């Protein structure tokens, strides 16, 4: 009680001081620190009385989560579980929340977690933190490891949360940036059930599951800028769970994964009072407590085999006192046995000490599969076939059999069939109708609905024929799907422990293939000379701050302008990074001076999404081998997502460059104006390319020109071409940029507007009339609004007629009449030379 008083006085003092220091803040309605402090402090002060130290009052049985049976006889209740007085008595304690045990009579409870970690002591930035709800967001900027135990600084977005229960204890929150914070013990890389208490709604406890991702295999300790020690809750490492005070002894934390199960035998004389089933490396073993000490040896086989195989007899490893249902004190022997199989009777021979005889018994360990969510399998999924894309997929494994729940991007297919379209048509018994609909927002921000299908028994890592039934055409279409499951690749995070609310693992994009990241650059750190990227919706941008060369391999440090990226898949593997200052940063192997496909996983949307990107990291010095990609032209021509082929020879023009790419794409660079990408009819537009070039889509059947010179050349080209029908001939018309008639463009269905040289950037020193500049900006913006591409003609800016004529090539490319344009150009230039001669 003395402590309490001291603390109260200290708190009051703090309050008075704070109020005195911030009179204005205290008056204001804003929920500032000053008003928070007393609120946060109150519950803490009230929990301190000594009663809370007493184990009976403080430690909560947690039967719902722990396996009901346990073996170890010693109860390990530690009396030191209370809050260290020196922490709580000090006023500063309000900033560093301290743990108090969950009072047995109050609200929900949590059970202790094993927060041991292989990470060395220090502070870490986790790569991910999931949890919370739509209303309250959780984040975790820091994980602290101390004495091999991990605790996380949990930030809750709502200031209404006054305490958090975790790992069997209660932690008061303190105001911090982003809401309120509490340091709680966590088991990394698995689901932790916690309870948060909000003062809103008259006070309410709400259950959450959080998962904090931090690669435990590699020490990626943050530089720890401050040596400031984070106060660790003193209670958490010492609390051992205690089970029912009547009979069940506690379990010591054990290696291996506990499996929820039940156990039964086929004989009343051979009774197991408790058991713990552990799965490690795919094998089960069990610690069982028999109801008595009547059998002192077991043998995993028949009585006959046991008699002749003394090498494999299993002696009891200890005894266990318990209270039976009638309240009698009993003692049973404890055995550690291998379990060859679950959910099926396994033979076990038991040796009766009194009768000196082996008896045949059977024991069945039933793993409660229905109550336990199936194990999610990390995977990627790939589909073939037009308009058939899977936006999320959940693959679950049960007894070695995989089943999948997939969501298609739309509702166009209403049934699926595991087989070919031909088979589907005649086998209606195996048609799989959609089981649900799923609303989501696509990358473009549009609201979409997809159908959800459950596929029983799918094979993994092979391309499965899958027939899809089109609802509109009432036809079966042949498609295929491949579920890729990593077989050899080590998974950086252990699969999360089953939680009460399984979240779908939407997987959309296959891991990009391994790249050759070898480089001739010497080991060290480089700044890229050029970095470009494409992909995604454009809301998140990617930057590349440096390239590190280690052992002749190049690694790029790339950073997304969002804190929601959990991992990046690149070069055949998955990479986890860190979140600092609102950016997600990763170091990945790259092939320098080439397109690299990568996949980023963002949790920013309602569900996790994988998004494909292409990045291009250019370091000039890496091109010592002088291959084609090294020429300055090639560097300039480089466009993300396109493979450069060649550049046209330009004879006279000072303003144009023409680059060609695989697939018939051509880019035309007009000096002082823009870079244009001419996309052939039917060709796919590389995502994100519009960031690098203005797109002109072919065919151009109707164009308008505000340049006389351009219109003349276009007319010349068109009159030199013989079109099969008049409909095939493009139509060119004059369009006055000084008095723009936008309705005319729409009436004619214009595909391109050519504007005169005045639209080019002014030369150095040239002053542009503000009014004229504004008028041109209007034209640009309005053409963009109408979706009509615009090209700046600078043919009249050329120094000589040859340069002007070379623009024939540009218009030949645009109109798809290159040969005719080339002939015209050559003839005209020849004529010029003739005249000059």
């Amino acid at each position, binding site marked *: 009680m003395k402590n309490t008083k001291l603390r109260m006085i200290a708190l009051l003092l703090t309050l008075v001081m704070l109020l005195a220091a911030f009179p204005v803040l205290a008056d204001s309605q804003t929920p500032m620190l000053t008003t928070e402090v007393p609120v946060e402090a109150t519950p803490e002060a009230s929990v301190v009385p000594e009663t809370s130290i007493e184990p009976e009052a403080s430690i909560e049985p947690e039967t719902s989560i722990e396996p009901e049976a346990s073996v170890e006889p010693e109860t390990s209740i530690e009396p030191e579980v209370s809050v260290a007085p020196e922490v709580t008595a000090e006023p500063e304690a309000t900033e560093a929340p301290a743990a108090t045990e969950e009072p047995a009579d109050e609200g929900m409870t949590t059970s202790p977690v094993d927060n041991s970690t292989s990470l060395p002591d220090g502070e870490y930035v986790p790569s991910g933190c999931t949890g919370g709800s*739509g*209303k309250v967001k959780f984040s975790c900027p820091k994980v602290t490891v101390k004495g091999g135990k991990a605790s996380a600084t949990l930030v809750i977005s709502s200031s209404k949360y006054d305490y958090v229960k975790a790992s069997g204890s209660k932690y008061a929150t303190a105001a911090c940036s982003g809401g309120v914070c509490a340091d709680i013990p966590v088991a990394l890389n698995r689901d932790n059930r916690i309870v948060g208490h909000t003062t*809103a709604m008259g006070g*309410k406890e709400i259950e959450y599951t959080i998962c904090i991702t931090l690669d435990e295999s590699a020490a990626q300790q943050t530089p720890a800028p401050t040596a400031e020690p984070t106060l660790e809750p003193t209670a958490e490492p010492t609390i051992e769970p205690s089970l029912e005070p009547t009979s069940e002894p506690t379990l010591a934390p054990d290696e291996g994964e506990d499996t929820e199960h039940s156990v039964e035998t086929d004989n009343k004389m051979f009774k197991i009072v408790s058991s713990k089933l552990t799965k490690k490396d795919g094998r089960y073993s069990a610690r069982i407590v028999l109801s008595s000490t009547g059998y002192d040896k077991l043998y995993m086989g028949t009585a006959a085999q046991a008699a002749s195989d003394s090498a494999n007899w299993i002696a009891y490893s200890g005894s266990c006192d318990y209270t039976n249902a009638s309240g009698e004190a009993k003692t049973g022997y404890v055995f550690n046995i291998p379990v060859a199989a679950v959910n099926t009777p396994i033979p076990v021979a038991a040796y009766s000490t009194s009768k000196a005889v082996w008896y045949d018994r059977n024991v069945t360990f039933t793993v409660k599969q229905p109550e336990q969510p199936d194990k999610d399998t990390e995977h990627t999924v790939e589909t073939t076939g037009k308009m058939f894309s899977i936006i999320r997929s959940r693959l679950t494994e049960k007894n070695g059999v995989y089943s999948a729940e997939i969501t298609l991007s739309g509702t166009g297919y209403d049934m699926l069939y595991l087989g070919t379209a031909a088979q589907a048509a005649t086998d209606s018994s195996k048609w799989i109708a959609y089981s649900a609909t799923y609303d989501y927002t696509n990358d473009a921000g549009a609201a979409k609905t997809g159908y959800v299908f459950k596929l029983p028994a799918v094979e993994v890592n092979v391309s499965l024929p899958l027939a899809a039934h089109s609802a509109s055409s009432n036809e079966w279409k042949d498609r295929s799907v491949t579920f890729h499951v990593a077989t050899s690749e080590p998974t950086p995070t252990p699969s999360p422990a089953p939680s009460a609310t399984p979240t779908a693992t939407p997987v959309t994009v296959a891991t990009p293939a391994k790249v050759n990241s070898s480089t001739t650059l010497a080991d060290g750190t480089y700044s890229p000379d050029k970095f470009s990227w494409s992909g995604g919706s454009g809301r998140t941008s990617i930057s590349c701050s440096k390239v590190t060369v280690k052992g002749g391999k190049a690694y790029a440090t790339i950073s997304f302008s969002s804190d929601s990226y959990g991992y990046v898949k690149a070069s055949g593997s998955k990479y986890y990074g860190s979140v600092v200052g609102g950016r997600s940063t990763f170091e990945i192997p790259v092939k320098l001076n080439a397109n690299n496909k990568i996949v980023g996983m963002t949790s920013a949307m309602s569900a996790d999404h994988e998004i494909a990107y292409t990045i291009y990291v250019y370091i000039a010095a890496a091109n010592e081998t002088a291959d084609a990609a090294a020429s300055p032209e090639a560097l300039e021509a480089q466009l993300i997502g396109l493979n450069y082929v060649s550049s046209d020879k330009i004879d006279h023009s000072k303003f144009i460059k023409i680059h060609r790419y695989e697939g018939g794409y051509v880019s035309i660079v007009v000096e002082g104006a823009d870079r244009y990408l001419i996309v052939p009819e039917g060709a796919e537009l590389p995502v994100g390319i519009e960031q690098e070039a203005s797109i002109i889509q072919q065919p151009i059947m109707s164009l308008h020109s505000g340049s006389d010179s351009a219109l003349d050349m276009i007319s010349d080209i068109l009159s030199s071409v013989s079109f099969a029908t008049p409909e095939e001939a493009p139509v060119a018309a004059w369009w006055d940029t000084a008095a723009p008639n*936008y*309705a005319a463009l*729409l009436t004619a269905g214009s595909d391109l507007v050519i504007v005169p040289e005045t639209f080019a950037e002014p030369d150095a020193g040239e002053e542009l009339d503000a009014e004229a500049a504004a008028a041109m900006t209007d034209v640009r913006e*309005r053409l963009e609004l109408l979706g009509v591409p615009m090209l700046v003609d600078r043919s009249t800016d050329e120094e000589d007629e040859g340069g002007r004529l070379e623009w024939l090539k540009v218009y030949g490319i645009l109109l798809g009449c290159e040969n005719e344009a080339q002939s015209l150009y050559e003839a005209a230039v020849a004529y010029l030379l003739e005249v000059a001669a």
Partner: protein
Amino acid sequence: MRKLLTALLALALVLGALPAMAESAGQEIPGLVWESSMEKEFATEFNVDYYEGGYALIEVVGSAKYLVVPEGMTAPDGLDASIRVLQQPLDKIYLQATSGMALIDQLGALDSVRLVGTKQNGWYVENAVQAMEEGKMLFAGSYSEPDYELMINEGCNLAIESTMILHTPKVQEMIELLGIPVFIEHASYENHPLGRTEWIKVYGVLLDKEEEAEAFFNSQASVIDEFAGIENTGKTVAFFYIASDGSVNVRASRDYVPAMIEIAGGNYIFENIADPTSNRSAVSISMEEFYNAALNADFLIYNATIDDPIYTIDELLAKDALFADFKAVQSGDVWCTGKYLFQATDIIGSLIVDFNHMLTGEGDMTFLYKLS
């Protein structure tokens, strides 16, 4: 001399009369002779003045003025450039403002609407759905990305936009550059529920259906007279939906839905939510805030105009388990509106009747239904 005196006298009279006339006569337009002003009962967001020859000036308060020029006539010379000219017939309308559809339907003038800003599955006005099915109305893009080409090719002669267009001024400018006048309606700003209905009079002016508009409005307005003397039931009502992010969307206290609840004899749970000076008709609040306010509300009405309708209390609980604590959930007084509500500007009177029937437990419903 007498002549001069008479003239002076006349001048003095005219001058003296002028200020008084200016007040009652509304807008002076050079070249036009003012006749009368439209009488209004509830609407405050528009004014209409009539001029000789069938001209009408529509003023949308705080927005713009539009001169409706009858077919075969022209706008007077020297018309103030700020007044936009709407040349009748206005028979190729792009209707982006959804609330206008029900009113135009009541006028029997859907033929004038050629293009719409909402797809077929977004309409709850039956005749509009049918018109779209038959291809009489075409979808021409949303407010922010209209299909300019279609507008031009269809000869669109008026774009009726909701205030959403104010978010994309460049789009409005572009439509006007294409020679299509843009009329921005403010019906959603009306505080009185029947103020929204009264906008049918504006459509009556645009579409030359003034008499039909007047008659229909009067039939709906009679509801107000019916309820004029009723006593407040003392019951409280929450009107809301759960947004996709888990927040709760409620009507602002000054919005027309709370007003309808009051007219029907109920009390809206939020006495003062949302900035009264803003034009926002709805606000998003957290579930916690909603819980605190609506826990003891006598009635919950789920607003299904934006979110999908729900039919059972379980569906509500699935959205948030906290609803189990609500008094109205425990007593089973949870209702849902039809999808039609927002577009149902025409039958606002009927909705007030529905609210009253819900509160008193007597009478039939038009478009509220109780969750099971």
